[in-house]
């Protein structure tokens, strides 16, 4: 894989300031990513890697990742976001994707980000399902410095259930009755291998590989600095987030919590309004980054 100076000279059409959109390779597929070098007081020993959520959730949260990376770069942190196989501008077939593939892509992205930035440590930012990916990546590496979780999913099945619930809700909102429950639709997914939901499809390969994932379990050895950013219309931490915070603190790690009083429509297409953004979340993440040891 080419390193930064080579990339900059390769194609002058794709740089903005120091921001560098690019393609890199994972499992014989080109993946899209964008590298943001630190703009001020560079902390070259750490680079931030964003792990995105899936399907329409990825579309919803994409702009926040971009803004997050730009914010981090201004705050002195090199950062990198990428699209996994079968997502965004990357190659790959979502139909065949498994959770292991997503974790492999995250690790390749992290290695590439380290190479581009010269950093020795990774600060992971997991967005929704991306929290599970980041947690699994952390479990198989020894270079993770910190972890930020943006509205983390605590179980792999939550993504699928949320997408199905939104689809059923849309039918009701159109004045139609649905004869199926979420569980019925999951059975259909398992039987047929594919299930259409809002704006995309769910695939059995990923469902089967993600159904038993548990964020707490994946992070059972994690004792690094952690931010839990809960993005819900709820004045207190949810039971799952409370439990996760307690578990990490029990291992002697410093955890920060931020409650963002908003509930984006994660599984709805961002078409009639712009993609979701939240200044408070960016500020909270920036503050947390600045306090990292």
């Amino acid at each position, binding site marked *: 894989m080419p390193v930064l100076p080579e990339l900059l000279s390769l*194609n002058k059409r794709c740089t903005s300031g120091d921001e560098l959109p690019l*393609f890199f390779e994972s499992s014989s597929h080109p993946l899209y990513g964008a590298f943001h070098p630190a703009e001020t007081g560079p902390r070259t020993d750490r680079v931030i890697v964003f792990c995105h959520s899936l399907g329409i959730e990825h579309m919803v949260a*994409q702009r926040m990742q971009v803004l997050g990376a730009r914010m981090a770069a201004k705050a002195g942190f090199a950062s990198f976001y990428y699209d996994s196989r079968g997502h965004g*501008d990357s190659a790959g077939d979502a139909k065949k994707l498994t959770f292991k593939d997503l974790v492999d892509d995250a690790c390749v992205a992290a290695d590439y980000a380290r190479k581009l930035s010269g950093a020795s440590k990774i600060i992971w930012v997991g967005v929704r399902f991306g929290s599970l990916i980041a947690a699994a990546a952390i479990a198989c590496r020894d270079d993770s410095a910190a972890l930020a979780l943006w509205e983390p999913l605590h179980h792999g099945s939550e993504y699928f259930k949320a997408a199905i619930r939104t689809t059923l809700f849309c039918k009701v909102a159109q004045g139609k009755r649905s004869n199926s429950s979420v569980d019925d639709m999951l059975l259909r997914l398992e039987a047929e291998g594919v299930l259409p939901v809002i704006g995309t499809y769910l695939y059995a390969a990923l469902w089967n590989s993600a159904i038993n994932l548990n964020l707490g379990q994946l992070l059972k050895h994690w004792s690094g600095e952690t931010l839990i950013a809960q993005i819900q219309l709820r004045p207190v931490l949810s039971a799952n987030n409370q439990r996760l915070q307690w578990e990490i603190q029990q291992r002697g790690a410093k955890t920060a919590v931020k409650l963002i009083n908003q509930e984006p429509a994660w599984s709805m297409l961002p078409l*009639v309004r*712009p993609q979701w953004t939240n200044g408070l979340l960016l500020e909270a993440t920036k503050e947390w980054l600045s306090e990292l040891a």
Partner: protein
Amino acid sequence: MDWNETPDLLARAWAEQPVIMPGPQGELYGIFTPPAPEAPPANICVILFGRNRWWCDRLSVKSARWLASRGFSCLRFDYHGFGESAGDCGVLHGDRPFTKDALAAIRYMRHEFSQKRFILSGFCLDGRTALSAVKEEGKAIEAVVCNSPEVTGYQGDVVTHMITLEKIRSFFCGSTSFKKDMLLRAVRRFNNLVKLATESRPGEALAERQISINFKRDFQALVRAKTRCLFLEGRDDSQYHAFQLVEQALLTKVSDQQRARITVEVWPGKIHLLENPEILRRVAERSLEWIDLCKQRPVSSSKMAILDAAPEIKMHFVLSEEPE
């Protein structure tokens, strides 16, 4: 069409290049897909508009690679305020397309990639964006695909479809909150119609006034520029109910030769179902098929072939055929 990734499409993915283009509100980020070297060159750049540049089910990503495998260059990019692009886009409105972004993209492709001929494609607001670029760049635009666009300047159904049996049924069967919502919408629509009725638009009856001035202007530019256009509609969509005004008030006023360049396909049922990825795939397939035919029959040809209609719509409309 098989939407799974084939080795050919993977090869197109390997050839893709990120681009950053100057736009009216800052930089616009996109992906350029060069044509497959082994395919006969189409010498046309297809710009696929969408929010964001991947579109639902990543259809723009897959479409770009499919078109590139058939000799087209392709560009997909984020409008300002979307994806990686700079700026803020505010509230979206079906009658306010991203014209300046579209023009910036065309000019960048011309300047940086030496592209001379373009086909623009989009769904709903993105289709309107495609259409709106013709006024300034019509000479370079070979064709436009404008699927299920909004043609009025306001939300809601046109007069002829404000009250329907289906709506009455839904109203009485719906919950209290659903009923309240429907009533509020009805009031808003009535207010819109009162505003239209009092506007000064000489020579236009109330029915025609429901077509927005922006759409009329862009449609007239399309006709003048002799650009081909595909309008794909769903018979039961509110967007088609409004588009029927275009058929009655605008399409009847163009010459046979002008009419021959405009294809209107009306599919049974609804196509404006963004929650239904199967329908969106079928719409994308039809758009790609039509774009591919444009390559085979450039506009300079004196006779345009009759476009092969999807089987389920053959019975429902008459295809436009360019006179000899």
